[in-house]
């Protein structure tokens, strides 16, 4: 196991480097002059001033040199400064990160809590009304875009229940857990819906497959009740692909969170990114994208390790 962890950690380095190259290059796709993009178009600079700025920011150097400078600063925690707020990008990110992380975790918990039971019932009650209802739920969950569901939730809450979920500033969990959860629950439901649909479908098809296998038939032949076959034998095996799916998809919640935060006006990383894009605050945008991508890789790494714990075959490959 230790070997596996070590090997997996080693592959992290080229991945992270590659990500940084892509983020760097994508930001260089922005058309127009980097300096005016950086300080905004409302300031007119003389050619000499622009030249001085370019030299100051190292933009007169070649692309690889620029990348090297940027990367060496970045690994030391210096992602530059936000042009709008004047704050270091990293401290802005760290301030917003807990909210996004919390949102993703609660969404995942909801997805698991809803998806697995519904999937199990659907599989056990195959081709009954319950199964059809479960499958309909999954189809709808995968087809309803989060930003639509969020919009409708806000509408329903404000018109029928006269609550505005995003009235008032965001309260941290540590300060007032109840208030915090009240603010998080609807965004998390929105974010978790599609995920729970995916979990449901995987659970259902995995359990159906296991129920068809020889060992399940043997268990039945031995006189186990169907309930016993499912609970004692099939369930454990059926959950392996579900756990794989959860690991694979967990990182995508970070992408989905961007939109949900925008819909519910939550001050997380996603909103920071979108505001940065709208305000042409490129150091900020670059930093946030890099940070989210890194978190994504770390989440995937954790998922892989968790998977290796459950499924020993992986470790010995």
């Amino acid at each position: 196991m230790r070997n596996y962890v070590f090997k997996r950690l080693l592959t992290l380095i080229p991945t992270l480097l590659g990500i940084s190259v892509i983020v760097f290059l994508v930001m260089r796709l922005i058309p127009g002059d980097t300096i005016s993009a950086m300080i905004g178009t409302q300031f007119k600079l003389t050619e000499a001033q622009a030249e001085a700025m370019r030299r100051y920011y190292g933009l007169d150097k070649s692309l690889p040199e620029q990348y090297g400078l940027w990367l060496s600063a970045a690994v030391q925690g210096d992602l530059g400064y936000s042009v709008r707020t004047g704050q270091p990008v990293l401290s802005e990110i760290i301030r917003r990160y807990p909210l996004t992380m919390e949102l993703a975790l609660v969404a995942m918990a909801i997805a698991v809590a809803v998806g697995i039971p519904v999937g199990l019932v659907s599989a056990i009650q195959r081709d009954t009304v319950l199964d059809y209802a479960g499958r309909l739920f999954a189809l709808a969950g995968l087809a309803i875009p989060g930003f639509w569901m969020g919009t409708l939730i806000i509408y329903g809450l404000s018109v029928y229940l006269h609550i505005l979920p995003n009235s008032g500033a965001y309260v941290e969990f540590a300060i007032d857990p109840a208030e915090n959860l009240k603010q998080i629950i609807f965004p998390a439901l929105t974010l978790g819906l599609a995920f729970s649909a995916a979990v449901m479908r995987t659970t259902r098809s995995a359990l159906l497959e296991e129920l068809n296998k020889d060992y399940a038939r043997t268990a039945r032949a031995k006189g186990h009740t169907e309930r016993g076959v499912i609970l004692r034998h099939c369930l454990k095996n059926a959950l392996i692909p579900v756990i794989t799916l959860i690991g694979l998809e967990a990182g995508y919640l970070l992408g989905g969170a961007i939109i949900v935060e925008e819909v519910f006006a939550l001050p997380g990383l996603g909103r920071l990114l979108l505001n940065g894009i709208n305000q042409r605050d490129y150091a900020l945008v670059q930093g946030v994208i890099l940070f989210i991508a890194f978190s994504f890789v770390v989440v995937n790494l954790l998922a892989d390790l968790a998977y290796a714990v459950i499924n020993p075959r992986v470790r010995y490959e």
Partner: protein
Amino acid sequence: MNKSAGSPFLRRLGRSPSAVAGLIIITFYVVVALFATWLAPYSAAGQNPKDRLQSPNSRYWVGTDEFGRDIFSRLMFGATNSLTVALISVSLAFAGGTLIGTISGYVGGWTDNVIMRLVDLMFAFPALLLALAIAAALGPGLRNTVIAIAVVYLPIFARVARGSVLLLKGLEFVEASRSLGVGHVRMIFRHILPNAIAPSLVQLSLAFSWAILTEAALSFLGLGTIPPNPSWGSMLSDSRTMMELAPWMAVAPGLAIMFCVLGFNLLGDGVRDILDPHLHLGKTPQ
């Protein structure tokens, strides 16, 4: 029965209820998208201030927005927009990805290694984040939205194609063709590619549903289709300030997106059930 109806794939597709339902929904959308200009009762941008914010009625089936534009017509033109973006971006991703994956798998060695490491890198980003970053860097607009979606989906097709090529390479018919002196180019295009495409077909339908969702999401965030061009996503975004006065503005575009995505998902499910024998579930003995 004529010959094409006898094709086992199409015959089985016709017997899958989910594929048939998906095909019906998609056909409906395609017809609307193709003929929106003739079918839509009003123009997409025509403002009619006297009729602003009307609830659904006999003249405006789905009501009007804050400029008095007919939402039903805008939904129809939105279908044209959505499906155009999806069709071009998925075609690019499919063609590019399949070609790259096929060559990568066929050539092998360090070429394969380099290409696949690059593909892995693309998977190291949440798909939506990457599309968003590209769209943000390039700026909004139809062409850039297409590029963003295509770039993100291309590696998926590349990976799938490579996987099946690796499998095919070891099969006897390839060996037989080679011993008959078939060259590499002919081998790839005549023998490998046609066989490598089948698994990608499953991805194709999912790619469409993802492209439609992503176009809507980008437009919702103001990074996709540029207003006043009608896009389901930007219509939804506009609806948010008008929600209490005109909830139909929020309901209609969402339904349009949902059923379109549903259509492609259903078709994808049907195709997967046919092509992926692993998932064929016999009757559960209960």
